[in-house]
């Protein structure tokens, strides 16, 4: 047992830190630290900086232009970027579509799409969920009917994150309605400019436009946009779900969040003392910090296994559940910490006045508390994860 990084790993970490010092624009890290919403340009800017360095695609094999890092390197990179308040990389093209194309796509698809993902020319979004099919993806209804050298797609997708910025969408569609639910599904690449596609915003409870509904009305998609074989789409989607569990625990985000709560609690005063010295608040803070210390080590254990070539098993489901509980608890502490200043809605309706209401750290906390309830709902709800864990561990 050795809880420390090797010399090589430390050297790599130092390299990442030096890069972030030099290349991460302060405007971006300030926005992330203040939990401001990032615009499309902000995300594209950071994307381009990473691409220039060759660090945009840690998971990709080198032959496709990736960094091909091992699990420990990826972890170090994630940890350092989270601590430095770098923007998150939009994952839909890079981490979700690309591995599927690399494994199952045609040579033509790989040659055409992968470079466009790196260059930022294509912004992908994901078309999996439907109004009637959330965690129960296999029951999806969007139909694609072959008509000569096209598919005609009809149906509706929902919870499409950042779909308003995307020019491409990868979709699960039903190509054979007569077989068992999980069969008969295909994986299609669709241009968002195709006639018949309409994107409607869904405003979330914190007032933010983050997700969308996407409607398909007789949308014509060339057959060469099919990935792999017809009716095998479920296999590709599952491949993604089981192999792509990057940063599932969100340790770096929790650490950054905890530091932020501590800063708030040092600044706020309760009963004439810093809030951080209040016994009840200090106890809540300590409990979550203790949980986080343990989870960080669980995370490293899995990473260490992965670096040694072992596939992560049901442990990633465990990390997902615990990770979301911890992040949500930290969000709750932040809300609690700011007291009455959690009440204002930091909307742009505070006309032309960009000064925050109350201390600047207070502005995002309520929105973050409510918005991050999604962590335990989307991406395989915690209930789904618990079911998987029990099944695997009791199935024996």
């Amino acid at each position, binding site marked *: 047992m050795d809880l420390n990084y090797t010399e090589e790993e430390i050297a790599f970490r130092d390299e990442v830190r030096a890069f972030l010092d030099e290349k991460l624009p302060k405007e971006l890290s300030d926005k992330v630290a203040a939990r401001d919403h990032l615009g499309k340009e902000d995300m594209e800017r950071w994307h381009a900086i990473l691409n220039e360095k060759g660090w945009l695609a840690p998971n990709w094999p080198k032959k496709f232009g990736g960094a091909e890092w091992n699990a420990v390197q990826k972890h170090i990179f994630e940890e350092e970027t989270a601590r430095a308040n770098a923007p998150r990389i939009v994952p839909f093209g890079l981490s979700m579509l690309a591995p599927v194309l690399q494994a199952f796509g045609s040579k033509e698809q790989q040659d055409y799409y992968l470079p466009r993902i790196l260059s930022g020319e294509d912004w992908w979004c994901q078309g999996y969920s439907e109004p009637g099919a*959330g965690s129960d993806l296999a029951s999806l209804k969007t139909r694609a009917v072959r008509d000569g050298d096209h598919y005609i797609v009809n149906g509706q997708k929902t919870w499409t994150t950042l779909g308003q910025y995307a020019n491409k969408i990868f979709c699960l569609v039903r190509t054979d309605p007569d077989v068992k639910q999980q069969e008969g599904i295909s994986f299609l690449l669709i241009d968002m400019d195709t006639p018949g596609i309409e994107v409607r915003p869904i*405003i979330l409870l914190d007032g933010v436009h983050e997700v969308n509904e996407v409607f398909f009305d007789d949308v014509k998609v060339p057959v060469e946009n099919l990935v792999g074989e017809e009716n095998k789409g479920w296999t590709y989607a599952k491949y993604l779900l089981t192999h792509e569990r990057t940063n599932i625990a969100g340790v770096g985000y929790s650490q950054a969040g905890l530091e932020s709560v501590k800063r708030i609690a040092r600044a706020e005063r309760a009963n004439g003392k810093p809030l951080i010295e209040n016994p009840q608040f200090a106890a809540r803070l300590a409990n979550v910090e203790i949980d986080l210390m343990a989870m960080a080590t669980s995370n490293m254990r899995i990473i260490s296994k992965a670096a040694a070539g072992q596939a992560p098993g049901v442990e990633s489901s465990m990390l997902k559940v615990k990770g979301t509980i911890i992040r949500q608890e930290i969000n709750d502490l932040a809300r609690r910490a700011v007291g009455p200043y959690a*009440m204002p809605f930091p909307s742009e309706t505070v006309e032309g006045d960009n000064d925050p*209401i*109350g201390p600047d750290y207070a502005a995002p906390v309520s929105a973050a508390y*409510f918005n991050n*309830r999604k962590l335990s709902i989307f991406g395989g709800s915690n209930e789904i994860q618990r079911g998987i864990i029990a099944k695997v561990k009791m199935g024996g």
Partner: protein
Amino acid sequence: MNFDLTEERQMLQDTLRRYLSDKYDTETRNKIIDSEEGMSAEIWAELAELGVIGALFTEDQGGFGGFGFDVSTVFEELGRAGVVEPFLDTAVLGGGLIARLGDDSQKELVEEVIGGSLHIALAHGEPVSRYDLSHVETTAKSSGDDIVLNGRKSVVVNAEAAGQLIVSARESGDVADKDGISLFLVPVDAAGLTMRGYPLFAGGRAAEVTLDEVKIPASARLGEAGKGFAALTDVIAVADVALAAEALGAMDTAVELTRDYLTQRKQFGRPIGSFQALAHRYSDLLIEMEQARSAVINAAGHLETADAARQNASTRNLIGRVGRLVAEESIQMHGGIAMTKEYELAHIAKRIVMCDHRFGDIDYHLERFIELSAA
């Protein structure tokens, strides 16, 4: 021992519930929230006419209620419908202070409040006071027959709509002393009074208020100089009952929406409520709802007794805990739909959680309970 509402209160409850379920649906309410005023003058007037405000004042004060169970009956229904109109601010806090402290001429304002024609806001909290009621840095200095106010008041709910603010200011004593705090009626158009308004996360509006050499006559003082703290404590005790009852009503709605969702939404071919894990968690919500209902009864039933403060602390702690559980579990059991702004639960969950940020959160009330229990 009797746990039935009196006939009058039962009627009030029925009337209110019927009116709100007819008139205050999700779409209407969300439009109100998005409006510039953050409230509906029409709804306000109609509810005033139905007696909602009068029920919050005693007969002596010109109303027909004013006891703990009147307050809890009204606010439970307001909470159930997710009402954002500022009854707490104008009636309980504003009207309540004037009714308690005002001289005859000041008391005429209470009539306007009950009639629905006047809004009031309590400008008490300050940027660093958090939940500490006696922390008042705003100063009041006599200058001849006038009084000059200087200071900043934060998250003054309903300030923009109010005709009068009730401003707390210190005439003597140290910054956290209970003695020395006075209350003043200050017209919103007083020179030197500026406000920066903004919407609130759970609906309604508030403002940051700055008092820069605001001059008012000494007759604007409510009650005795330096003796405002007791009355403040009194109306905030009523507000505690109101907030707890409001949260209870909202929690009831959340749990009902959850039941409907669990029984109607299907996954893998079955209603999701038939999955035992969700069924048991739903049962736990119901068990905690019984606790919450009893806690509100305890607070309302003890409001006029010597044990009021301890009972209030107990109730607000419990309501805060159960409220968080209900809000989070209801959202979780719904899944994505509950994350969208136009779904009723989204607003209801925000109301529940934001109650925990007015006049003390769970921890504040726990500490208060410990202190009062030791005394």
